[in-house]
């Protein structure tokens, strides 16, 4: 029986070791770290990017948040990534998921993200979604920003066209 348990433990070791991030080890208490690492394992199993989760945990640590709140915030970020991937579809790349999660937080709806996936550049929709988020950051209303991005997507604009759109509509922040 002990041997069986040992074997099961060894089988589990690679995933746990994979989830260990030295940045978390250094900055989270052990109880919080274990819970965050469990979320990292789940995210990895679902094919979601894990770096946003690590960063959310580090953010909480730097802001002095208690462990349970850090875990809750990481779970919330996990949920954002899930919703983003659901809106984008199973084949979404990591950068698209991160950009979609940001767009959702900036005010886009899952339907908007799904629409962009359908009509946006075949190479990926990370740039169009990031441009939408950037326009909102520059002060544009969500509806107006989405209308601009969506119209360009329907006209078949490529990444460069979206970047040009961003430069035309949002000169306040330079980003060559």
């Amino acid at each position: 029986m002990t041997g069986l348990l040992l074997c099961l433990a060894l089988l589990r070791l690679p995933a746990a070791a994979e989830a260990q991030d030295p940045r978390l080890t250094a900055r989270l208490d052990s109880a919080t770290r274990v819970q965050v690492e469990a979320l990292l394992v789940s995210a990895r199993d679902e094919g979601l990017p894990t770096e946003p989760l690590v960063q959310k945990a580090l953010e909480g640590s730097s802001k002095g948040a208690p462990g349970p709140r850090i875990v809750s915030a990481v779970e919330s970020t996990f949920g954002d990534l899930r919703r983003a991937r659901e809106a984008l579809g199973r084949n979404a790349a990591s950068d698209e998921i991160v950009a979609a999660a940001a767009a959702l937080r900036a005010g886009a709806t899952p339907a908007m993200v799904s629409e962009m996936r359908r009509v946006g550049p075949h190479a990926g929709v990370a740039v169009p979604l990031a441009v939408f988020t950037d326009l909102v950051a520059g002060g544009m209303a969500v509806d107006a920003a989405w209308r601009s991005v969506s119209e360009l997507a329907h006209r078949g604009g490529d990444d460069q066209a979206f970047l040009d759109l961003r430069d035309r509509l949002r000169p306040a922040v330079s980003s060559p």
Partner: protein
Amino acid sequence: MRRAVLVAVALLLEAAPLSALQLGGTLDVGAGQATWDEPGADGSLTLGALGARYRTGPIAGLAPEIVGGVDLSSEPAARTAVQWSLGGRLNTRGATTGAWIGAALGGAGIGSPTAGLTRLEGGLRQAIGPAGLHVWLSRTTFGSSAIGSKELGRGDTLALADTVARPVSASGRRLAEYTDVGSRATIGIGSYELGLSLVRRVGGTGVRRTAWEASGVWWVAPSIGLVGAAGHSLPQFGLAVPGARYGTLGIRLALGAAPRSRRPSHEPPPIAASSPRLVLATQMRLAIIGPPATRAEIMGDFTDWRPLPLEPDGEGRWTLPVALTSGVHHLNVRFDDGPWTVPAGTVAVDDGFGGQVGLFVVR
């Protein structure tokens, strides 16, 4: 005057010990072509300038700083003109509009800084988004019997002209006194910074009384910039160096921050920051206009959420040389150890910890 400046600098250092957080500077090295305001004097021009600025904590509602620098430049006879200065400034802590006064002492000479100089200065500043406008007045006095009687060399023409108009006293002092009224407009566009200066000399002598300079910096890396400048400089009486039309190219190394004009007569005052706004987000540099403050910090997913000091760039912005990947990033900034805030120019979203975090995009 010199003693008073030294005492003031010592008091500022005593009040706020040196720390890397508030110390910044630049090192410029360049070369170009010059046509001197002296018959038949054309030739190459080489320049070197080291400038540093140290900001201390607020005093009586004002933001003091210690400024110093060393300038080296070739003169018509291909010798090296040397000038150094050390002084202090008091800046008002206004938002977009402010004022400053300062005093500095130093030395100047050919080959070595044998002559003393003192400078009193003051000015106004106005920030308009990523642009800044500065207007200032400075009174400079060179005084040394050595320059008046012993060390006049090939650049003597203008120094002698000055002597005719304002004879050297029995002690050899007051060889040159003049007042400069200057203005400078600057703007940051992406990795580029452009500037235009105009200076009018009110006192002193010399056939030329107006100087101008158009300059540009292209930051090719977070701490490395290519600098180009063209203009017409005023004579430097204390060095017996005439003015010149010039065009130069060089390299600027940001040794922390605080870019500094390579010509003291063109040096703009620092400009006060406005309300927090992210004004530059490239893969190499972030820049934020902030409220009046003596220190600023930033943290985000590009620092693993460890606070890093922002560096004043001398143009009213707080900057961070950083390697950013393209895509979505998050940040917070704070000033003078205040609360972490979200600058305008980012999407403020709930951070999950009872506050907000700024979301921005780098392409």
